[in-house]
């Protein structure tokens, strides 16, 4: 309620201020403060064990070293490939499942439950299970490939396949999540549109192209942005399954930061990495939103 600054206003205002106080304190202490602090230490060489006052000021030295570091470049390159692969595959699978379920289907609820199940499982647990499935000698996958007469694969132990093997686990675990969001998006398409199109003699493919696709576009935009941010920050499955190996072939950005900060204790350098990765994520997100807007999607 908008009121003039009288007693009534202050009654509301004092309540409002009181209501937001806990959030403001938490945000200040655990988000805004830390961001400023992180930016500050990104200009120092500091291992956290010594007091900060003894840390050595290195100017933009951390940024220069990170940007010229081969391992960091490899981690960034892996993260980009992982993210593109994961977003495209996950959303493609999710969309296919959602479209297949969005009609009169026998046991529809059961199928939806099955596809959603991986979403609610523990990532560490499924990463362990998939490590066994992927095992080059005793794994189920190589056994099946052998029966089909296809040559044995290294999966997690191969420098060419490790990143994609981890990605596949993520696709399997997350597809159901985006499927539910796509299904919700499909439900918002008015049924009259299809009826009108059918009266005009449109076939299924035409209705999909001319009604479903444009109506679903905002949902797809949202999912692309959310899935990209999620993929760029991947950590757990890589940490459990490969630790970034073999030979850094599956090293991703957040894992590299984790190692830098908590294995090598280079807090300043790790902090500079977070800002570099943040700028990258920010640019990617902006480009995506722009592209979608050009494609006719309203700003979210």
């Amino acid at each position, binding site marked *: 309620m908008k*009121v003039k600054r009288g007693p009534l*206003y202050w*009654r*509301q*205002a004092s*309540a*409002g*201020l009181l*209501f*937001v106080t*806990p*959030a403001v304190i*938490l*945000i200040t*202490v*655990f*988000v805004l403060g830390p*961001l400023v602090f*992180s930016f500050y*230490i990104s200009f120092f060489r500091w291992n956290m064990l010594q007091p900060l006052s003894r840390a050595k000021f290195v100017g933009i030295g951390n940024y220069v070293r990170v940007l010229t570091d081969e391992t960091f470049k490899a981690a960034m390159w892996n993260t980009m490939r992982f993210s593109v692969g994961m977003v495209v595959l996950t959303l493609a699978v999710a969309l296919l499942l959602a479209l*297949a379920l*969005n009609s*009169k*289907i026998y046991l*529809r*609820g059961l199928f*939806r439950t099955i596809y*959603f*199940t991986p979403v*609610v*499982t*523990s*990532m*560490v647990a*499924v990463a*362990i299970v998939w*490590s*066994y499935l992927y095992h080059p000698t*005793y794994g*189920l996958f190589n*056994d099946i490939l052998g029966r089909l007469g296809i040559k044995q694969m290294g999966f997690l132990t191969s420098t060419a396949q490790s990143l994609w093997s981890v990605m596949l686990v993520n696709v399997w675990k997350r597809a159901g999540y985006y499927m*539910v*969001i796509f*299904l*919700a*998006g*499909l*439900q*918002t398409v008015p*049924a009259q549109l299809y009826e009108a199109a*059918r009266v005009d003699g449109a076939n299924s493919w035409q209705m999909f192209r001319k009604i479903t696709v444009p109506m679903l576009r905002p949902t797809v935009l*949202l999912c692309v942005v959310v899935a990209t941010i999620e993929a760029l*920050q991947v950590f757990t499955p890589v940490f*459990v399954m490969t630790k970034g190996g073999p030979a850094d072939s599956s090293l991703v950005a957040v894992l590299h*930061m984790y190692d830098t*900060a908590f294995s090598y204790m280079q*807090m300043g350098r*790790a*902090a500079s990495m*977070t800002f570099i990765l943040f700028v990258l994520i920010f640019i990617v997100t902006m480009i995506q939103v722009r592209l979608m807007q050009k494609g006719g999607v309203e700003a979210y």
Partner: protein
Amino acid sequence: MLQLGRVVEMDSNAGAALGRTHRIGHLVKQILVHGFLIFASVLMLLPFVWMVLSALKLPFEIAARPVVWLPEVPQWSNFTRAWEMLDFGRLMLNSVIVTVLTSAGVIMISSLTGYALAKLDFPGKNVLFVVVLSLMMVPFFMLMVPVYVIINKLGWVNSLAGVIVPEIAPGFGIFLMRQFMMGLPDELLDAARIDGASEFRIFWQIAMPLSRAGLTALGVFACIYHWDNFLWPSLILISPETMTIPIGLHRLYQPNLFSMYNVFMAGSTLAILPMLIFFFIAQRHFIEGIAMTGIKE
């Protein structure tokens, strides 16, 4: 609200007019779609089936080549071994404490702040809203290093508080609740005000009950996320007594100890079960909740 159970009626009316060719086409389409759905189900379930079967095997069956699908004699003792090695009761208790307290905190803070941003007028409101919007763009990894330093200074390393407290003011939750509470009718709140209800009472007895759908969505989202959260807790929870399920399971897992894979599979099954059971019980809320978080209005 979304009606997920509703199916868009695509094939009902027009079908009759088009006659037999259409019906055969329809049948073929149904068979293809179902074939695809069943194939996808097999792929989705295969890892779970393999996990449970392997959890019941002897070490030599785990390493058999070609693979053995069914164990000769189911080794239920693998589960007791995994339970004891994990100290699963303790892990479960810690996980429940972390998930419940964090989710409750998230719901409380998000709804209080979201309500104030949506329905109350106070100085600094717009600034706070912009801050909340920008918070949603701060990825967790940016806070990993500095918040760890703070938690370390507070002496909260190796305590559940160190996992819970930094996580309870999420920009996303506040934004979601603000959007939801914008839709509450002002007349109702004003009527209560005229009747002399305090602002907190209006929030607690009118706004909260009317926002049940939004609260459920946020609660489901927070539960799934915090139950499975790994990176941050793995930094804070370093002794077995404080560990949550994912951290404890990761500690048990040794990739090169192949003779133990049956126990690892049993441990993984134990780790997955609680949330899975909860999901099957409260399925509708899960699916509707997730669907809602995907719709911005």
